[in-house]
């Protein structure tokens, strides 16, 4: 696994948190240069306690008081994400990151770091529920895109907190944000049950009106489980008749950690063994031109005619391949498996 943060030893002349960019040829105040395992910056030098190799172009956030760095942006990563908070007002039965009362609200640092990003970078913002801090979040994004209109954000949100008064912010940021919002069932009762919040479905529906009217980009995410497997067709039809303006419908396999691990037996549906419910939903999506994608589905678990929809969705730092994958011809296009995968699929095999 790739470490996303690390302890350091340093001789910084400041206690204030700051942002750095790993750059060989730059005189910028933010640049940081490697010199035999030591990194030189304009505030002094630092060294990792663990063995971490930084990439050229990486952006770091430094917390001198805590002797700690966050690797904010790695150029070769398939996704770079800001974890804003671990607080959430929903408690989904398959949550891979159960809520905790912890926030990481370094908006100033995130803004400074974003300004240093390469052209056209996509930055994820996730939680917990990021829109619990929507005021600060919109402020930060507005500041970033004022300087860097090319930067785009992919925000994972439960969609519960938008209000009419957010319309101006939503409109101002609509070119720069893709909102990834979960819809788990075509039935109010089941959706509310899955997210453990009464009224969540109704709230979600009325809030998606705001996203539509503000011209926002929408990704609807549906985690595929025993609980909604037979309902997946109906969700496809719901999307066609209510949200045909969306950008992506992501059907997602489970990540066996957190609550998902706890509830595994009652929720995991082995799509490698029976893909039918998904095949039906995908066919409906094609009939109505809904841009459906499969996240977290290893390619070998997907029938041939749907393989092109399987996205390399698992972040590199928590992704692994199995021994058998060495012989697979499509390994490079495949999302692989979560680090914590443990033989849940009946049918996994190298494709050749």
């Amino acid at each position, binding site marked *: 696994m790739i470490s996303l943060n690390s302890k350091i030893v340093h001789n910084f002349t400041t206690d204030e948190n700051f942002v750095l960019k790993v750059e060989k040829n730059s005189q910028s105040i933010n640049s940081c240069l490697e010199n035999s395992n030591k990194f030189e910056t304009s505030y002094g030098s630092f060294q990792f306690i663990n063995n971490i190799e930084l990439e050229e172009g990486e952006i770091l956030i430094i917390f001198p008081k805590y002797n700690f760095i966050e690797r904010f942006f790695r150029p070769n990563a398939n996704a770079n994400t800001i974890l804003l908070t671990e607080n959430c007002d929903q408690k989904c039965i398959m949550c891979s990151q159960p809520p905790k009362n912890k926030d990481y609200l370094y908006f100033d640092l995130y803004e400074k770091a974003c300004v240093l990003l390469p052209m056209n970078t996509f930055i994820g913002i996730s939680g917990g529920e990021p829109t619990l801090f929507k005021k600060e979040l919109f402020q930060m994004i507005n500041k970033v895109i004022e300087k860097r209109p090319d930067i785009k954000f992919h925000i994972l949100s439960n969609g519960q907190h938008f209000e009419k008064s957010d319309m101006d912010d939503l409109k101002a940021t609509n070119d720069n944000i893709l909102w990834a919002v979960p819809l788990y069932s075509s039935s109010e009762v089941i959706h509310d049950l899955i997210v453990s919040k009464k009224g969540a479905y109704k709230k979600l529906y009325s809030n998606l*009106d705001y996203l539509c009217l503000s011209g926002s980009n929408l990704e609807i995410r549906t985690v595929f489980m025993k609980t909604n497997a037979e309902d997946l067709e109906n969700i496809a039809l719901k999307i066609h008749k209510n949200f045909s303006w969306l950008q992506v419908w992501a059907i997602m396999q489970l990540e066996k950690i957190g609550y998902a691990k706890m509830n595994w037996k009652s929720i995991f549906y082995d799509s490698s063994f029976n893909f039918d419910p998904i095949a039906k939903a995908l066919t409906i999506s094609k*009939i*109505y031109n809904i841009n459906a994608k499969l996240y977290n589905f290893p390619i070998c678990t997907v029938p041939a*005619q749907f393989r092109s929809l399987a996205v390399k969705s698992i972040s590199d730092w928590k992704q692994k391949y199995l021994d058998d994958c060495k012989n697979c011809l499509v390994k490079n296009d495949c999302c692989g498996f979560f680090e914590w995968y443990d033989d849940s699929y009946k049918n996994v095999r190298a494709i050749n």
Partner: protein
Amino acid sequence: MELLPWQFQEINSKYLITNEAGSFFFCDENNLKNLINQNIDPIFESFLLNQNFTYEYENDMSWNNFSYNVFKRKKIDHNINYLILVPTLRCNLNCSYCQVSRVNENVLGYDWDEETLNLYERFISMQETKQIKIEFQGGEPTLRPDLLKKIIDITTKYIPQSEFVICTNLSNLSTELIDLYSNSNVFISTSLDGPLLTHKNQRTANEYQTTNFYNNLEEIINKFGFDKVSALPTITNFNEIEKVIDEYANFGFTNIFLRPVNFQGFARKSFKKNSFDTSSWKKSYLRAIDYIFQRNFISDHKMKEFNFENSLKRIFHPGSNGFVDLRTPNFHGRDYMVIDYDGTYYPTDESRMMSRIGLIDMNIGSLKNGYNESKINQLNINQFNETDPDCIHCAYQQYCGVDNVDMISRYNTIDIPKFETFFCNTNMFYFDQIFKRISQKKDIDIFNINGHLTDIFTTDNYFINHYYD
């Protein structure tokens, strides 16, 4: 409860109800009357809400979804994204129904010259589009591979995401051309009229040219595969339509565009009977579709017919506005255009032919002098069906389109009732076909409709939500 505007049409003694967004369902006469009288029970109301025929409040999700799809159906790009270029008018064949846009191979003065090329560079450098598709028409464009290369270089210099389709009779296949074809953004479109004899009679004339064409087509397919090449038949003998399909299947093609001989140009004189005879075309087309459907049902080699596929997409995929013969609005001089051998602009390839035979002057500018805005505006006054007094009553209005060039070419005027025109007649027929099949729910039809829409051939009926029984 307020109903959004809707239209209806009788299909197989059921009623098809459609709206501007393209939503549709079937119901019986009783429910049609209930709709008309707004006598709607809660179950019907909830069905109508789910189908975007009504809404709970302004800007709710049904309203938004409806509006979005209406907008998407009507949206046409403001930038040019599709150009037909005629680098030369010269051709080395003399096809029986050539749509006149040709001169003999040895005539001088019918190719793009240096000045045209420079003006083209100026034109393409000013385009704001991010991607463009260029179709080389003729004449026979492969008579000037050097010109093709130059045009491709100029275009990709300014618009890196460019695609090129060379429409060729495949009589030439020099190493220079093969080099050109091996570029991944270059494609080939050719004519294959059906059985060898037909192709010979209509196009290649003698044994040598015919064998040459067939050899070259096979060589191209073997070298580059079917993704590289598409073929179009021109059907003059409607009785032969199954043989045309067989020929395409034998070659291994998975797409076929069944179209009757075009009306424009000399073809009008040589094939007068068939080009008028819509009812015999419809009969043959119907036979052909059934033939293809049965073939697909039993064979692993699946084929899709273009009219059927495109009409389905017009129904199910709002925003399928890529086929410019079937969309509305269909403004000229907006997102596509023809540039002739002398740098003259025409709105469509048909209008270029009509201008050339002197029927009407449809040039809308040139590389040298730019657009003739007032003429474009004049042509565009009626280039949409939204206000046509006949179309506004039609349940297929939002799926259909408008083609005034075709009207002028057939009737010398656009001012005749739509339902009397070839355009309306054939398209009504194509849509009737589809809705009849959806309403009949026969396995073989569902199998092929699924296949044409999604490439997944299955008898699972996913259209249940379109029946209100």
